[in-house]
Each structure stands twice: as C-alpha cells, then as structure tokens.
C-alpha cells in the first residue's frame, strides 16, 4: 500500500488495523448469509427440476416419447392405457388461448386508458382496484366460473356442458387481466413525456399519440406482459380443475368438458395412485412438459424485453 504523504504513519497504522477485522469479518458473515438466502431459491429450483427429470425419465423408460408427444388419447388411469399428451395439451392451449383472447384487448385498452386518458385521481383509484383482481384466490375464481359464468352461458345455449373450456377461459382471462394491464401501463408510462409532446406538437390527437407513438415505443414491455400472462394462464390450476372438467379430449371445442395438464396433475395427486407406478409417474412427465413450456415462454419474454427495448436519452 502506498502511504499518503503528510499523514502520521503511526496513527494511520493503528487506525487501519482496527478498521480491518472489526468491519471486514461481519461484512463477510453478512455476505455469506445473503448468499445462503439467495441460494435457497436456486437450490429449490434445481431440486424440483431434478425430481421432475428423474421421475419423468422412469416414465419415458416405459412409454415411448413419440407416443407421448404424438398421441391424442390420454387414458393412463384406465385399463387400456394410452399416453397421448396432446389431449391434455389441447385443453391447456384452449383455456390459456381463450383467456388471452379475453385479457389481451381488455388489458391493453385499460392500460391505454390508465396511462393516457385517465386523470390522476381516476388512476389512483382504478389501478389498485384492478390490481385487487390479482389478489383474489384462484379457487374463488374457479367457483365463480362454475357457479356464475357457466349458468350464464348455458342460459344462452343449452348445448354447453356444465364443465366447459369457455367459462374457465373467460374467468382466467379476468384473472390475468391485471397482469397485462398493469405491466403494459407501466411500460407505457415509462415512454418519455417528450415523445408525447413531440407528437402532440405535430397535431396528433390523444388516440394518435397513444396508438402511433406510445404503444410502439412501449411494445417490448407490452409483449413481455402478454407472454408472462400467457405463462401464468398455462400454469393456472384451480380454475380449470373446477370449471373445465376432467375429461381429456383432443379438441378445441370450448363448449364440452376437457382437461388441462395442470388439472390432470391435481386429479392424480388427489387420488389413491400408489407412488412409483406408471400412473404416478405420468404426472412428472406432464409437469416436466409444463415446466418446459413456461420456461420457454419466460425466456421468450426476456428476449423480447432485451431485443426491442428502445434506449432513450
């Protein structure tokens, strides 16, 4: 170390020594404990993924991956077992897709309203209320779908089954709505005021400013919110278990009973399937597939945010 000129060496020496261990040791302990906290979630993830892979490997030891990915009938709990995950995947895609059809337009339009049109007072009231939707337990949504939305739909047409995809889709769309609207609104409000002023100064109306400047500039955040909401819908369990049925069907018909991947996992875990059996291992194969899908979606969302983020001064 270089001694600074003009500083008395003795006192600076004593100062530095006490400074060293009394402050550095706690600092190291703290650093280490923080690392432990941080690794808790990482270790959990690693643990979950290894269990999934381990059990799924057993499953794929007995069932060909081609049958699993290519088959359209899913009957592992019956005597004549068939393992075509497409039947479950169709249910998941139907309900998640349906919920996006509800959540995307509503979410983006409410985000435009909150970010561009609403007065401060309105926004201060509306936004928390919208976000309360995210705090409602999903089991409540599930029964809301089954006991309120389904009778409404059946009131329109008798041909709709009691358990169906459309009711679950609508309610799930409402559930993920705050995610789309809130994240999109954050992205829109992050667009610099100067861009809005630039557009207004050229004679734009509020609608033109919103659609031609704010939305394009906030697109990366908006798309990321879509993808996050979609992966939330894909992983959502309670609503689809309660309202969509337990009848794996390779269909995109929203009016008949279906079963999603998540609902199947619930069905098996609730039953008395003995551990270690092939039936039991199916849920790990399904769970691993779900995990791969949502991981893919989240990575896609990250990619979008990075790739399309505009850098402002």
């Amino acid at each position, binding site marked *: 170390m270089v001694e600074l000129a003009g500083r008395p060496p003795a006192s600076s020496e004593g100062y530095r020594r006490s400074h060293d261990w009394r402050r550095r040791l706690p600092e190291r302990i703290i650093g280490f404990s923080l690392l432990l906290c941080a690794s808790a979630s990482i270790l959990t993830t690693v643990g979950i993924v290894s269990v999934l892979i381990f059990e799924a490997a057993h499953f794929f030891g007995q069932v060909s991956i081609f049958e699993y990915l290519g088959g359209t009938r899913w009957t592992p709990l019956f005597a004549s077992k068939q393992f075509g995950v497409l039947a479950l995947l169709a249910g998941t895609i139907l309900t998640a897709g349906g919920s996006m059809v509800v959540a995307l337009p509503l979410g983006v339009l409410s985000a435009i309203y909150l970010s561009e049109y609403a007065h401060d007072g309105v926004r201060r009231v509306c936004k928390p209320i919208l976000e309360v939707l995210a705090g409602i337990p999903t089991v409540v949504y599930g029964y809301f779908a089954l006991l309120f939305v389904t009778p409404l739909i059946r009131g329109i047409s008798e041909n709709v089954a009691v358990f169906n995809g459309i009711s679950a889709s609508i309610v799930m769309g409402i559930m993920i709505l705050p995610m789309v609207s809130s994240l999109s609104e954050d992205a829109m409000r992050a667009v610099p005021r100067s861009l809005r*002023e630039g557009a*207004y*100064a*050229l004679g734009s109306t509020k609608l033109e400013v919103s659609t031609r400047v704010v939305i394009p500039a906030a697109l990366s955040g908006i798309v990321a919110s879509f993808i996050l909401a979609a992966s939330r819908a894909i992983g959502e369990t309670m609503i689809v278990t309660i309202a969509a049925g337990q009848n794996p069907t390779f269909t995109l018909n929203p009016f008949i009973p279906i079963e999603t991947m998540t609902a199947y996992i619930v069905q098996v875990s609730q039953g008395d399937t003995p551990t270690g059996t092939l039936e039991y291992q199916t849920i790990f194969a399904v769970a691993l597939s779900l995990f791969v899908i949502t991981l893919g979606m989240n990575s896609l969302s990250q990619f979008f945010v990075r790739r399309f983020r505009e850098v402002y*001064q």
Partner: protein
Amino acid sequence: MQPSEPILQTKNLNVYYGAKRVVTDVTLDFVRNRITAIIGPSGCGKSTLLRCFNRMNDLIPSATITGQVLFEGQDLYAPDVDPTEIRYQIGMVFQRPNPFPKTIFDNVAFGPRINGFRGDLPELVEMSLRRTALWEEVKDRLKTSALALSGGQQQRLCIARALAVEPKVILMDEPCSSLDPIATLAVEDLMRELSQDYSIVIVTHNMQQAARVSDQTAFLMASQERIGELIEFGESRQIFTNPQDERTEAYITGRFG
C-alpha cells in the same frame, strides 16, 4: 395581407398553474417572417409563454390562461378552436431532440400521415430533410432508426419533422441547449434560412444566440413573487446595444441570471 402584420399577438396574457400566476400581463406582437427571441433568466416563464402559442399548456391539467392569444387575428383559445388544428399550423421544436423511436423516414412522415397528406410522401420527406441540410447525411439510411443519429442531427431531424406539416410558425424552446457549439451553429444558420418562409419564435437563455439570430427580442423576468413579466420588447439590435430598462441592461451585461 401586409408583411409587417403580426402573425401572433398576445393581449394582457396571464398564465396560471392552479391558483399560482406564473406569467403576468404580457402584450406582444410577433411579426411575420421574423425571428423573435424570448430571453430571460431561468424560471421567468419564457417556456410557459411559448407553450401558449400552440396550446401545449393544455396538456398540463392545472394550466389556465386569461387574456388573449391571437394567431393571424384569430383567438387561439376561442371555444370552437381545435388545439390539434392549431398545432398543425404552429410547429414546435423542443429543448432536447425527441425523435420518435422509428426510422428517419417515418419520423418526418409522421405529421403528414396523421394529417391525411395525400401527395408524394417520399418527395415531401426529401424536401423537408433538404431544408434542414440533413438530406445528404441521411439519404442512404432513411430506413434506419432515428435514434442512431447524433444529437445535432436529431435536432435537425426534429426541425424537419416540424417543417413537413408546413406550419406557418415554428416555436423553438431552447433548441440548442443540449447541442455542442458546432451543431448549435448549424441550427442557427438553419433558423436564419427558415425565417425567409416561416415566422420563428425562439426561447433561449443564451443571449449571444438571441443577439446572433433574432430580429426582435422580448426580455422576461420573474418578479419577487416569481411571476414572470415582460420587461422590454424591441428590435434585437436596440435591446442588446441600447436597452431602455436598467433590468434589461443588467441582464444582458451579465450582472445576474
């Protein structure tokens, strides 16, 4: 229409943010095809005054005005006036370059497109870019992002964007404050050239700049209660060489501000 007829006028204009008055009793005439500078120390309300001319203050919910702002004799704040129509005729360039995160072409074409321009858009874009001496620099990369341009180029692009809707007046709010001296010089030359066809109002706190480019100068200053008022208005030559008010003299000789 005589060339000396004022294109913009304010009559006893007061601007308020909520209950607070920020600009008081400004009566000014802006002459057609001249450059008028509004100078004054920070916080004297010069930007606020400028933003009355294209009703930009409408975007601030608490802002209100009393008095009149006339554009070619028409009251800009009359109830039947659509602010978007006003902004189509009175363009604005901001303190910091604010190109949209779009291509260079789309930036210039933005105004004409929203205003339903039906002519030859590429030609209009080229013309606007030529007017700001940017064409030669960007003609080969019109389809690339405007954010890749340098600060000075971005500001000239913003001027080109404003010109593309063919306004009659261009308001400039400290257009060179974030530019280096060379880019500043380019923008000042451009302003001199544009004043052949446009009336320009420029807010600046750079007195040399006001003296260099403007024909007329208005000096604003905030009172003790921080209410901006017009101290002196006249030909720039007279303001900068022989100011009538001692506060103007104090400001331009650098004794405060």
